Every structure is written in structure tokens, then in C-alpha cells.
């Protein structure tokens, strides 16, 4: 009797989440089925970088895909998160979980600053303003010796040359350089951020974001406080980037302000990931970041084949590949991977109610010009 009740409560969705969590937990072992991936730290560190990228993309998707605000400054937010996380772990020795939260909140404040120009700007103007942020932050962090000395012993060579060391962090009881252990730590954070993102999407705030994206004027008319919600979108998105940034510091164990991981190229990579996944789709962001993570080994394998066939590999082959990839998705799959999956599900599902559960995710091509 009681069991039946439990079964009723735990219908469809419950099993779905059990499967999702089980799937993510088993992923380090499942993934070894793929070529290029064995059961070793290489595979696990790829998974970790994927989770980090996925968290950034979840946040960027909220801002760009859901609230319709373009940002080329997310790599800078990511960097701020990494530096805050690195500082509190390296110098203050705070517990890791607390540091992740602090990094998220601290970056949220930076997001507020980044969002301020958005109150008055849109389209290309906003793109330039956020781009400027992306240029300025690495310069500020690289140029300041004070910041370097906040981290580590000023007499150490690494500090003098601007490479800041952060002790790698892992789950308690594990070796610092155990990537598998770190996977579970990151997974936990990722799942929390994922659930949060799904919730935001369906909340009152999420609906306000959608309204702003579709038409600012109409949204205002409906009583959405434009400024408040735009700023909120930037802040929430920055929190995601900050959390991911701190995880990145724990994973890599060193911070170099001039690194390409924090340059505007990284911002473009984040945008590419959400376009590939499908704008506005939470699961799309996760998929898109997976594609971006899995590509480099694939690309270098292709390049090796070219090298074997023609005698020399192609410099910057990656760029050709990414360029084509972006164009292919924009022209042939404007809804990204999630759109493609949805179409498949619609085709093979007899139950129309199993269609999109989130508020309609319009195609990238349907977004208004703002």
C-alpha cells in the first residue's frame, strides 16, 4: 500500500534523476568505451575540464541564451573566480567548499560591475563594453605585483615571474593530484549548479529573462523591471563563472594571468559551446561544452592523419576546424544539439505532451535583433 504511494510519487521524473546522477557518477568508467580515452588521469582531467566549462556555459546560457544579453567578458569573470578561489585556498587556507561559495559571490559582485553598462547599452555596444572587460582584467591581474605577492612568497621565482601557485584541491582524504577524486568533487558542484539553472529557468525570474530577450519594450509593458533583471542576469551568470573559475584553480594548480584560458578567445569558446548546444537550453550547454572538450584530441588525431598522408601537419588546423564548426551549426543547426534532439524526440514520440518542458526555446535565428 505504502509502496504503491511511493511508486506513484516517484514516477517518470524521479527515475530520470536517478538515471542522470547514476550516469554522471559512472561516466569516468563509461567514457572509456570511446576511442582516445582510457581509464587514466588524462581521461579524468578531461572530464574535470568539461565540468568546469559546463558550469561556465550554464551561467553564460542564462545570460545570453535566456536573457538575451551578449557577453564577451566571461573569460574575465572566470579569471576573477579563479584568483579569488586561489587566494583563499593558498593564503587563508579556508575549507574548499566555503572557498567555492566565496569565489562565486565575489565574482557575482564583479558581474554586477560588468552588468552596469548593460543598463544603457545593447547589441554591438554591449559587446564592446564586455569585450573591454575581457581585455582589462588580465592586464590588471598580470600587471600588479601586489596581487602576485598576495598569493605566495614574493621571493619565490614563480611569484616574481607572475605564475601563481595554488595547492591543488581534492576531496578530503585523497591525494591532491587524483583527478578521479576531483571529478566527484566537481560533479557535486556541477549538479547543484545544474539544478539551480533548471530552477531559475522555470522561476518568475526566468520568465522575466525570457521576456527581456524577446522584447525589452514588451517586457517593460508587462511590468518587468528591466534594469533589475538585466543586472540580476549578469550577477547570476557571474556567480556561475566564479564557481567554475575556483574549480579551475583547484584543477590546474597555477594561475597565469596571460594564459589563453582567460583571454577573449576563451570568451568566444564559451559562446561557441552554447551555440553548439543550443541557445537557451540548459542541457544544451552541458552537451555543447562536452563537444568543445572532446574536440581537441579528435582534431589532433585528424591532423596526425593529414601528417601521415601529406608529410606535414597543418599549423593552426584547429582554427579551420572551429571556424567550420561554428558556421555549420549556425547555418544548418541553428537550434544546436538540443534542438536536434528535440526534433528527434518529437518525431518518434507518440505523446505530444512530452514536448519541450521549458518555455519554448526559440531558435537562435528567431531571436529579435536587439
Amino acid at each position, binding site marked *: 500500500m505504502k509502496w504503491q504511494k511511493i511508486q506513484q510519487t516517484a514516477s517518470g521524473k524521479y527515475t530520470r534523476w536517478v538515471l542522470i546522477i547514476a550516469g554522471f557518477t559512472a561516466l569516468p568508467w563509461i567514457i572509456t568505451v570511446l576511442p582516445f580515452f582510457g581509464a587514466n588521469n588524462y581521461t579524468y582531467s578531461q572530464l574535470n575540464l568539461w565540468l568546469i566549462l559546463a558550469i561556465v556555459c550554464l551561467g553564460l546560457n542564462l545570460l*545570453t541564451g535566456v536573457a538575451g544579453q*551578449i557577453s564577451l567578458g566571461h573569460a574575465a569573470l572566470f579569471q576573477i573566480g579563479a584568483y579569488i578561489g586561489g587566494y583563499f585556498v593558498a593564503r587563508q587556507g579556508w575549507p574548499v567548499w566555503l572557498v567555492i561559495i566565496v569565489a562565486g559571490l565575489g565574482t557575482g559582485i564583479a558581474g554586477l560591475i560588468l552588468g*552596469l*553598462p548593460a543598463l*544603457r*547599452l545593447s*547589441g*554591438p*555596444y554591449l*559587446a*564592446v*563594453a564586455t*569585450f*573591454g*572587460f575581457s*581585455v*582589462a582584467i588580465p*592586464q*590588471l591581474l*598580470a*600587471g600588479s605585483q601586489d596581487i602576485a605577492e598576495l598569493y605566495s612568497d614574493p621571493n619565490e621565482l614563480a611569484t616574481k615571474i607572475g605564475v601563481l601557485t595554488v595547492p591543488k584541491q581534492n576531496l578530503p582524504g585523497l591525494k591532491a593530484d587524483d583527478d578521479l577524486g576531483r571529478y566527484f568533487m566537481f560533479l557535486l558542484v556541477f549538479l547543484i549548479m545544474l539544478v539551480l539553472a533548471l530552477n531559475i529557468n522555470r522561476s518568475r525570474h526566468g520568465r522575466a529573462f525570457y521576456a527581456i530577450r524577446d*522584447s525589452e*519594450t*514588451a517586457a517593460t509593458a508587462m511590468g518587468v523591471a528591466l534594469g533589475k533583471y538585466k543586472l540580476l542576469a549578469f550577477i547570476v551568470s557571474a556567480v556561475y563563472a566564479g564557481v567554475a573559475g575556483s574549480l579551475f584553480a583547484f584543477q590546474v594548480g597555477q594561475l597565469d594571468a596571460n594564459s589563453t584560458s582567460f583571454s*577573449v578567445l576563451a570568451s*568566444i569558446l564559451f*559562446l*561557441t559551446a552554447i*551555440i553548439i548546444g543550443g*541557445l537557451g537550453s540548459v542541457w544544451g550547454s552541458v552537451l555543447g561544452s562536452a563537444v568543445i572538450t572532446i574536440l581537441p584530441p579528435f582534431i589532433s588525431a585528424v591532423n596526425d592523419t593529414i601528417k601521415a598522408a601529406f608529410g606535414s601537419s*597543418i*599549423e*593552426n*588546423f*584547429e*582554427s*579551420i*576546424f*572551429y*571556424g*567550420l*564548426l*561554428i*558556421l555549420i551549426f*549556425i*547555418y544548418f543547426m*541553428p537550434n544546436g544539439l538540443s534542438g536536434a534532439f528535440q526534433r528527434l524526440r518529437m518525431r518518434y514520440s507518440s505523446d505530444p505532451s512530452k514536448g519541450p518542458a521549458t518555455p519554448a526555446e526559440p531558435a*537562435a*535565428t*528567431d*531571436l*529579435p*535583433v*536587439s
Partner: protein
Amino acid sequence: MTALAIWATTTQPPLSVVSQATGQPFSWTIFLQSVINGISFGSIYALLAMGIVLIYKSSDVVNFAQGQMAMFLTYIAYSGMGLILGINFLQPHADLPARVGWGVFLGAIALSLVVAALMGMAIEKFMLRPLARSSVLSQVLATIGAGTLLYGLVSWIWKAEIRPFPRFEAVAGRPVQLGTPPDSIIITLEAINFLVVGLILSFLLYLFFRFTMVGTALRAMAQNAFAARLMGINVGRLNGLAWALSLMLSAIAGVLAGPRLQLEPNMMTDVGVKAFAAAVLGGMTSLPGALLGGLVIGIIDNLAGYYLGNGLQASIAFLIIILVLVIRPNGLLGKTIRKKV
């Protein structure tokens, strides 16, 4: 009062606080020299920025790949020189002369312009027309994608190694010196050339828009593409023309600045970004604005670099742009456009 007195007794203007960064007393000569250096590079930013504005005005597309396209066209000009001189330009250690004369220079520019025009029309027709009704984001990403692709292709064809770009003989002479040292200002012929070409081209563009049929049609289209179409204007072809013009400007900028920037796939990364900022600063819809924006960015960049330190040069330029934009959301010379719902 004491502050005032000190200010009066020393001949230093208020900038003295800032100039402490250099450890030197303030000097108007240095200030002017910085401004002149800024104008020199600013003219290059302006040329690219005008290209960005042309495209944005005609088709509402923000071309994030203007720099990469200019880079590609510079490589084309370089290859043109190689073709004319009969040198295999694909070799990374290709031995092009350090200076080239009128014939080679003009030939290379002509080749680059032709390729620019064809490329512009092709990009418009096959790449952006299908996206005419898409979001800003997909258009922006499409141009970023095209830029990334060009970057990869150039590295593939010409290799990523840095190589010198031949100088144009007529402007490679000794710099002009005004005044006697140490209070002298030095202007290179190249810098004068940048500015003069920039001014002439913008004047020609002004004449084109003001007095030709096609120019008028372009202006009409920029104001209201739908109405222009009703008036019998072939909007697609005009967009193609705007793209062609824009890339031709970039080709000229690339060839002019080539010796300074040196030929490599990244040669225009920084310039492209600053040109973009210049276009936005000027107002995105105004050609004189783009010219002004380019010069202003060049000058700010140099002044900030000299007085505030080179580490923060780009940051300060962008900070100022953001401030200007927050005060004037449509840029310095841009018009406020009320959007209809």
C-alpha cells in the same frame, strides 16, 4: 592656496601628478609627440573602423572579423608582390625585398582590391544573406567563425611564422624633424601617409554617399531597407557593394600598415579590436564618427601608454570607451534610433 602657488611657480600643467609615472617633468613636446604617434596608428584603426561602419549601416551586421579579413588581404597583397617579382611567396623564408617601387606596390594593391571586392560580395551573398533574419548573436558568431576560418587557412597556406612586409619606397625616407632637439617633434613619412590616405578615403566616401546615385541608394537603404526595396532598389546587390567597399578599405589599411605590423596571422588581432572599439566609439552608424573614433583611440592609447604605464594601455583605452558609451549610448557621433516594437 599653497597648492595653487606651487602650481603657479612650477610651469607644470595639472598633468604633473600623472607624469610622475615616467619620472620626468611634463613636456608639451612629448605630449604632442604622443598625440602625433597616436594619430599615425589611429588612422589605421580608422580605416578598418570605417569598413565596419559601412557594413553595419547597410546590413545591420557587426563584422567581428574585419581584422582577420584585412590580415588575409594583406597576405594577398604580399603574394601579389611575390608574383610580380617572381619570388615563391609561399616559402616561410621567402626573400622579398625590403623596399618595393611604385609598380610592384600598385600592382599588389590592385590585386588585393580586386580580391577584396570579390570576397566582400561573396561573403555578403553566401554567408550573411541567409542570416538576414537571424539574431545579432548568430550573425556575430558567423563573422567570428569566418574570421577563425580565415586565420586557420592563412596559417595553413602561408605558415604561421612572422615575416617582414616590404615597405613602399616613396614613404620609406627619413622622418621629418620639426624644431631643434631636444624640443623637437619627429614625424615619419609613413605616419603622414597613413593620415593622408585615411583623410582622402573618407572624403571620397563622403562624396560617394553625397553625390552619386548608388551612394544615395545606400543611404536610403540604411534608413529603411524595406522602403528602399519598394522604391526599386536592389537591396541585396547594394549590401554586396557595401561589403566590397568595406573590405577594400581594409585591404588598403593592411597594405599601408603591413611594414609596421609585420606579416603573421595575428597581425590584425590587436588592430581589429581597436578598430572595432573605434567604430563603436564613433557611433557605429557614422563614417566621420569612425574616423574620429579611430584617431581618438590611437591618441588615448599612446597617452595612456606614456603617462600611465604600458601594462594598462589597452585597459585604459577600453575604460574610456565604456565611460563614453555609458554617457552617450550611441557613441560620439551616432544618432539615437528609436526602435519600433
